[in-house]
């Protein structure tokens, strides 16, 4: 369907994602829509998400690369910058998008966000509050959620 008219840039990016994947990240296009990617990110080591496998979906809009890809966590995650619907608060996905960024760089940024939660720019108020008032407890919750929702399966 829409795949017949795929821009060269998307094809190129896809080929590179498949042939030389970034460590801890896998992204593969859906068979019926080449603009839709199934993504898996491994929880970074030394983070509350270590050991978890997080599923995301990534969609390249018509205007890509002039517009940012749309990315969402499918796996439940306890993180101040990610809400319960899996939406991500990350500047490069919004106003700081640049066409010089790619799928790979976006996913790496998300991975980095897992390593370094930023409760000062929260998407999920409650979690951010939790993080700020009692970080140790919040981190525990995050680990708990990782175990509950992101372990294998």
């Amino acid at each position, binding site marked *: 369907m829409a795949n017949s008219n795929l821009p*060269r*840039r998307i094809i*190129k*990016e896809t080929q590179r994602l498949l042939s030389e994947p970034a460590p801890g990240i896998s992204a593969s296009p859906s068979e019926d829509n080449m603009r839709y990617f199934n993504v898996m990110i491994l929880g970074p080591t030394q983070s509350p998400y270590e050991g978890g496998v997080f599923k995301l979906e990534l969609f390249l809009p018509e205007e890509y*690369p*002039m517009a940012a890809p749309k990315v969402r966590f499918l796996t439940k995650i306890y993180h101040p910058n990610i809400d319960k619907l899996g939406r991500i608060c990350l500047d490069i996905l919004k106003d*700081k998008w*640049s*066409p*010089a960024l790619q799928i790979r760089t976006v996913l790496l940024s998300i991975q980095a966000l897992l390593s370094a939660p930023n409760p000062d720019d929260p998407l999920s108020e409650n979690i951010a509050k939790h993080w700020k008032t009692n970080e140790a407890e919040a981190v525990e919750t995050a680990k708990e959620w990782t175990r509950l929702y992101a372990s294998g399966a």
Partner: protein
Amino acid sequence: MGSKVNDEHVSTVRSIVGTDYTDMDIIRSLHLANNDVTAAINILFDTPSFNRKDAPQMLSNPRVPSQNSQVDNRKPVLKRDDRSTDGPHVGSFDRERASVDCREGRDSTENDWWFVGCSEVAGLSTCKGRRVKAGDTLVFTFPLKKSSSSPSPGKFGRGRNLAACSEIVRFSTKEHGEIGRIPNEWARCLLPLVRDKKVKIEGSVKFAPDKLGIMDTVLLSMSVFINISMFHKQHHTSLKATISSADETVVHPLPNLFRLLGLIPFKKAEYTPSDLHTRKRPLDMKASSGLPAPLSSVNKNNNLSRSTDEVENDVVLSDSDVDKIVGVGASPELEEMEPPCTLQCELRPYQKQALHWMVQLEKGHCMDEAATTLHPCWEAYNLADKRSLVIYLNAFTGDATTEFPSTLEMARGGILADSMGLGKTIMTLALLLTHSGRGGLPGSESTYKLASESTNVSNALEQSTCQSKEMTKFLGNNQSVVRKNLLVNGGSLIVCPLTLIGQWKAEIETHAQPGSLSIYIHYGQSRSKDAIILTQNDVVITTYGILASEFSSENAEENGGLFSVRWFRVVLDEAHTIKSVKGQISLAAAALVAERRWCLTGTPIQNSLEDIYSLLRFLRMEPWGSWAWWNRLIQKPFEEGDQRGLKLVQSILKPIMLRRTKFSTDREGRPILILPPADVQVIYCELTEAERDFYEALFKKSKVKFDKFVEQGRVLHNYASILELLLRLRQCCDHPFLVMSRGDTQDFADLDKLAKRFLKGNKDALDKEGKQIVSKAYIEGVVEELRKGEQGECPICLEAFEDAVLTPCAHRLCRECLLACWRNSNSGMCPVCRKNITRQDLITVPAESRFQIDIEKNWVESSKVTVLLHELENLQSLGLKSIVFSQWTAFLDLLQIPLSRNKIPFARLDGSLSQQQRENVIRRFSEDSDVLVLLMSLKAGGVGINLTAASNAFVMDPWWNPAVEEQAVMRIHRIGQTMSVKIKRFIVKGTVEERMEAVQARKHKLISGALTDQEVRTARIEELKMLFT
């Protein structure tokens, strides 16, 4: 009516009526009285509409009981009726009867309502059984704006919709209420006028059947009155403004009303809207005339690629095209005038004619003529009202005025449009010497006083005519009078392109008797900021650049620059410089305050008819200085292929433009200027085998790209890229090195320069923002990468770079990709580092830089260069001078190598030189007998430069438009040339150059034949395809 008013009559009338009337009034009255002095005086005294100076516009007599005024004013009316035998006229009987019929209505007339006329109108009864009798006064009801409902809309037929109802004008009597309605055509033109309170109507029943039945005819007598507010200046303008925005095809109610009233202009407009409506389609026109095509369509096309490759697409008209458009003035009849003895050179007869013509235009002699020539768009009507004799009505805009609209309302000066090489400079200098003075007297009051004092002295009359005319001009614009009073009076100002400053100065110094004219060059950073300096000299020379910059600076009037002076005369040399209507230069020129204005240009039209508009605006050739007016009457019709637009331009230009060409002849039919013959020859060169291989390789590569565009049907979208491809091919014909070094980006072709610029730019960035954006090492890496010719990929399209650019932050991207991600076309963020950058910051990366070679060391002559050298050596032995033209300065760079090696001394003139340097180069070339060759870029040699020292010209590469080549070559084939001139054009066989010749021929057709938009588009594609065969 065509009789001219002469000065003798004016002075006679003036001696009787005294100073209360302006010359314009006197001229008008004479005009109306058919030059009968007594009648004219009567008209003046009897007619309040002739304004005293204290009441320029308005009726000034106190309220007079209307019955009396009717009697009082009989005389002029009779006079007018006497005259009615010599022209089309409303019968006086009708008029008399009408005035009787309408007397009742007149009683209620106030002073500011003027009776226009009366007519019998067949109204339709809308009632049944009512009785009205002749003489019953009627009240007319006009529907309010829009959908306001009126009673009983349905009675006249079900099909009628509400919109039509809102146009119904009904009449009623006091006793019976509604009687009927007036005919639609009357209603339509009355409605808008009555709504705006510009017109009112009164009426009575003239005849009606005893008992009215529906649809019965009721004969009405309707009198129409016009409010004098219609003639207020403010109104005038506001009206014009609304009209310009409104639909152009609207029929204006007032002219229509006049027609319905049966008023017939005693003087008809030359052009009327009905002319426009009967216009022929452009197709018919093409068949029937050889007039030039709508330049505009060519223009539209230009816009496609204007930003990218302006010069290449600029359609410059050749001399003959210009002639077709503006017409060559039939000048042999012009009188000659001897220049003053302070001019130390002989003028040719045609130059003396020009001097006479210019002096006359400045004196305003022609103005008298023009003042009595009715503007071609206005009609003159006699009103039935006894107080005013005449009103003027514009058939196009519906504007009405009591002021005589003449063709030359404000102008004093004109356009000297002799083609290049006829000596416009010297003619102007003769004018400067004949009359130089200081700007007008400080206040209009004193101007006026002076004018009136001198009236009795007959020999001063001419002058006073001018001055009082000046006064009317000032009065017409009260605001500016105040402003102008602050200005200091200056002499003559000459505005010219930078290249010509030196020439003007030199011409004045050599040809004017020492001490007769003092000169001041107003140029450079150190130029005077004191208006006094500007006014102390007879002649001030400045450039368009200075003019524009002083114009845009704050308080231009007070800060002592060009705008704080009221000039005696302003001369724009190469006046087509101001052609761009919205350009600062054009606005600046138009804003100068001056009494006399001149445009010198060999090409009054360069690209489009619009060019003329700017000139007329500068010249104050009212009303053509208003865009709405110009656009409606000239531009639009012209663009639509209506010849009338063009005709109108020609009729406007005729009195104010003098144009002769080299082919013009004098009274005896001899050419006005005899130049030695010019011989144009084309030298066809063959490429050497090595060159051919290189060319073919480049051609194939380019063709593949071009074919891709054709395949995608995106030829016109990629116009710029295609021109770029062609550019390479054309340069390759000159010398393959040009392609290797990418001559057009020569500044950065040298990578060391590039690196330097980067490091410098980076330092700036550091200073400003306090943090380092890109490291020095990074930039060095990038430059090194470029130097090695490493390909890399664009971070946006992930492909190999195509037309790569470098950002100031040293990021490399495809130009297209970068521009595509910017929201606006001129600036945005660097996609890589988010630094804000603008389009100007981008640096074109030298492509194929790995071919960069040391041209000195590896010098090889191209076949063209070989032929040129051979030619130059021949000329060297004869001691003849020549000019070598190329479009590319890079090619001039290359040519310097063999010239030096062959010991041929040369000079070089291109756009990079400062004014001083240019002058030096030209002087050296003209005076130093050793310097035989001048390398010149086609563009730098564009205007005005006189290079008659050379008798040979070599045009190394063909230009798209032959007119540009022609212009350059004219630098040597002009006045002062004593030797026969040889021009040689180089064309390489079997290349794009040869095919360009064919396109040149086509291009000529494009300009001179009418092609529609679509035709032009396809023609373009065809043209491009032709080049790639």
